[in-house]
């Protein structure tokens, strides 16, 4: 039997390698039942366990602070010069929680339901329900830390609405919600550093996972100032390293966001799930030139008051203010009357692409649509709009030179978030025992599409409220004597491999910079594994990415040396991993012959251009195992016992 056949047979069934360990019982009682039954670790024993937390974003900082507070010995790592600068800092719009303070009908069930539906029925019910359950505790915790959320005059917390929901459940701190939540977690982390329970190691990059005797035993890092390779042994490794959106080169992610840590874990046996699920955010500032280094998001919250439109006539190139109402097409309101401008991100992005493809795009490049606040300003007054979005408007003006109080913003979709990531079970444990994955780095809760304000919720749920229990279950089951020292041959081998790769890149002395390769990869992925995909394009991309990989190792030029601060050396290693990931993204997109959430296959759509899902065959999570030959597919079949998958309609 050929590999292809073996693969297609395995498509029919659930892989025995993927035990999600979902507790039995009613959905509403699973998490409580889990907590009732889970083994506890005594305080004295916690002190004797070393936990490595890689990443200091919302997931990493909250996990490190919480575990240290419980008594574990924690080492926390990040790339930036300070834990406070992790990419989470840039989140703007808000965080969801089923508090129902506005009394508008929200419940845990509704948040669960909206998230499952928003994810286009490609996530695990039990995980999502737990997320909705703990959401309220996150807000309590943040307020106790001094997070200055927006408030009403009466002194209670304010809420706003976000895409994909018909209730107001989003908490926010101006347009800087991620900053304030991260500073809260960073301060909690600092409290534990002061208490001597956390050793913080900034300016470190994890280059490999050390696995021995079938368990995660530690990591190899590079000290980004001295270039030294370092070994860190631990009883468990928590990977909180964020998403891989930068595979596309241009994205809303920070420049240092990368897949390297997750990719090294994949190569050491952790399965990578749903790599093709990427979220393209509808409201970003359009690309202005070849030098562009990243894209800037304009928060989704703007769609609460901004109206999206294009001129009805593609030849109408008048200034937006000069185009009368009846010559404008408010296409979201027209196509989706009940959700209007607040349709979920995937729907809004594809709609914008459709208008631009049809020639109705605006601006110099014609790859943009208008987001217009004229009506809202007339209705609510400039001051209200300034209170709500002032800092976003200023940011827009700083970047583009245009004043959105006077003229509509120009926006276009951009890569923003990755729903795919390392496969984890209900305990957030990967297929490598002892390796846990939290936050955007895992694949878990958002299915094929993430709703706005849900990533902050998930990162903090994982770190504050889930991992403290599930890590205990693992730690209670290991014996101290089983650990391996940093002098163990597994550490030596991993360190040597990491060193050899660095030397190879430096000694190659080719003629193309890491950025040149990154841009090329980005273009390939954006064109073929972007907002709309089809078989031909994906096959073409797969071949092109393979050639790019070969070319990388032939032609890469990395300046400088290994024993110093060297940003281009860091970038080169990350680009090499992004290239390999790109190939898996295309493979995964090719296999998923349906359209769902952020994954839209041209071949599977209605005559009106809406996505067509195939639940009979593809109601699964596709988890890829690395092998020396080619990635092997394992499936976690998703069962929906509490919600009935329907066609997602926002009409």
């Amino acid at each position, binding site marked *: 039997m050929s590999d292809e056949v073996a693969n297609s047979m395995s498509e029919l069934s659930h892989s025995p390698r993927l035990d999600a360990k979902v507790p039995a019982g009613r959905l509403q009682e699973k998490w409580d039942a889990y907590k009732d039954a889970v083994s506890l670790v005594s305080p004295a024993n916690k002190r004797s366990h070393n936990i490595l937390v890689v990443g200091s974003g919302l997931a990493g900082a909250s996990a490190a*602070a*919480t575990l240290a*507070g419980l008594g574990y010995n924690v080492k926390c790592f990040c790339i*930036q*010069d*300070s*834990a*406070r*600068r992790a*990419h989470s*800092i*840039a989140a703007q719009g808000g965080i969801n929680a089923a508090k129902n303070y506005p009394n508008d009908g929200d419940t845990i069930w509704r948040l669960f339901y909206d998230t499952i539906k928003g994810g286009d029925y490609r996530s695990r019910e039990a995980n999502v329900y737990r997320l909705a359950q703990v959401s309220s*505790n996150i*807000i*309590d*915790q943040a*307020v*106790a*830390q*001094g997070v*200055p959320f*927006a*408030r009403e005059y009466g*002194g209670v*917390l304010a809420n706003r609405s976000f895409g994909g929901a018909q209730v107001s459940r989003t908490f926010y*701190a101006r347009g*800087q919600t991620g900053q304030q939540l991260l*500073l809260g977690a960073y*301060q*909690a982390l*600092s*409290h534990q550093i*002061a208490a001597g329970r956390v050793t*913080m190691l900034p300016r470190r990059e994890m280059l490999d996972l050390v696995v021995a005797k079938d368990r995660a035993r530690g990591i190899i890092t590079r000290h980004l100032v001295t270039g030294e390779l370092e070994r860190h042994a631990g009883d468990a490794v928590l990977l909180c390293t964020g998403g891989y959106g930068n595979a596309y080169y241009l994205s809303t992610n*920070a*420049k240092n966001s990368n897949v390297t840590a997750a990719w090294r874990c994949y190569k050491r046996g952790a399965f990578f799930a749903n790599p093709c699920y990427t979220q393209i955010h509808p409201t970003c500032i359009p690309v*202005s*030139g070849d*030098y*562009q*280094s*990243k894209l*800037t*998001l304009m928060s989704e919250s703007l769609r609460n008051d901004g109206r999206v439109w294009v001129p009805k006539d593609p030849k109408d190139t008048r200034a937006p203010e000069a185009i009368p109402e009846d010559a404008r097409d408010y296409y979201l309101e027209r196509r989706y009357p009940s959700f209007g401008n607040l349709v979920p991100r995937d729907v809004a992005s594809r709609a914008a692409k459709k208008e631009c493809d049809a020639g109705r795009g605006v601006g*110099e490049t014609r790859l943009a649509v208008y987001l217009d606040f004229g009506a809202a300003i007339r209705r609510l007054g400039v001051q209200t709009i300034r209170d709500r979005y002032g800092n976003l408007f200023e*940011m827009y003006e*700083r*970047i583009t*030179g245009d004043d959105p109080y006077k003229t509509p913003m120009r926006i276009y979709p951009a890569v923003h978030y990755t729903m795919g990531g390392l496969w984890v079970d209900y305990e957030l444990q990967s297929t490598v025992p002892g390796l846990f994955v939290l936050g955007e780095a895992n694949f878990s809760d958002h299915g094929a599409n993430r709703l706005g304000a849900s990533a902050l919720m998930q990162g903090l749920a994982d770190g*504050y409220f889930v991992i*403290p229990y599930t890590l205990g279950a693992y730690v209670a089951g290991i014996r101290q004597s089983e650990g391996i020292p940093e002098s163990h041959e597994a550490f030596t081998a991993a360190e040597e491999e990491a060193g050899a790769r660095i030397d190879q890149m430096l000694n190659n002395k080719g003629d193309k910079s890491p*950025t040149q390769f990154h841009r090329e990869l980005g273009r390939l992925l954006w064109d073929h594994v972007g907002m709309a995909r089809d078989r031909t394009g994906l096959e073409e991309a797969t071949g092109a990415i393979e050639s790019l990989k070969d070319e990388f190792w032939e032609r890469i*030029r990395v*300046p*400088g040396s290994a024993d*110093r*601060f*060297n*940003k*281009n050396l860091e970038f080169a290693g990350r680009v090499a991993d992004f290239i390999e990931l790109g190939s898996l993204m295309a493979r995964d997109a090719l296999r998923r012959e349906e359209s769902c959430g952020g994954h839209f296959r041209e071949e599977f759509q209605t005559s009106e251009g809406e996505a067509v899902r195939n639940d009979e065959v593809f109601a699964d999570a596709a988890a890829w195992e690395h092998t020396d030959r080619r990635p092997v597919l394992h499936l976690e079949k998703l069962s929906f016992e509490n919600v009935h998958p329907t066609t997602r309609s926002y009409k």
Partner: protein
Amino acid sequence: MAKNMTINLRIWRQKGPEVPGKLVDYTVSNASEHMSFLELLDVLNEQLIASGGDPVEFDSDCREGICGSCGVMVAGIAHGPQQLTAVCQLHMRSFKDGDTITVEPFRARAFPIIRDLVVDRSAFDRIITAHGYVSVKTGSAPDANAIPISKDAAEEAMDFAACIGCGACVAACPNGSASLFTAAKIAHLALLPQGQVEASRRVVAMVDQMEAEGFGDCSNYAECEAVCPKGISVAGIASMRRAYMKGVFSK
């Protein structure tokens, strides 16, 4: 269409903390008014790599003015000439074709140079570790609406909490003081009931740490406020001083 610009750069090059550095001249002839200042440095670095040179090292991450990673002196001003703007959001339309711009690292005794424009700002983390937090562990929080907080207090706290920890205030201060940074955190927490419980201990611990790190005193120059990309007000410094005196004497 975007204008093409030629920009001359004089950039501080320094191989390490103990090695002397110097200004080196470069020219970028294909700049655009729409590019950010850091994108200009990116273009220069690509040019340097292609010609076998050594690219200029600088820190940046979010490139949208929120993470505080970036920060250099542009023409003698921390983050450059545009007010309320971090250098990653400074755009070349603020300059003219043919301009010569000097670029140097943030300089302060407490910020040793790592390489070129990259400095070590870990002293800021140690100030926060001294007590820039509310001592609350996970799980022990009451309901978020249990304590009402006036909208004005929350807004004012947010004004101070908006600090991105970039260090421009230190670089701009003739004394190399970290007063604005430290006061911002103290004020943010002191304005909220959750932070008030430990306010007095906090101010003493943080101010003492600031001194221990080698930051200078505040002499009310207010240069810090002028360059702060988030417009943090110096008003916090006066309250910090008063609270410090009270805190020290009540000890």
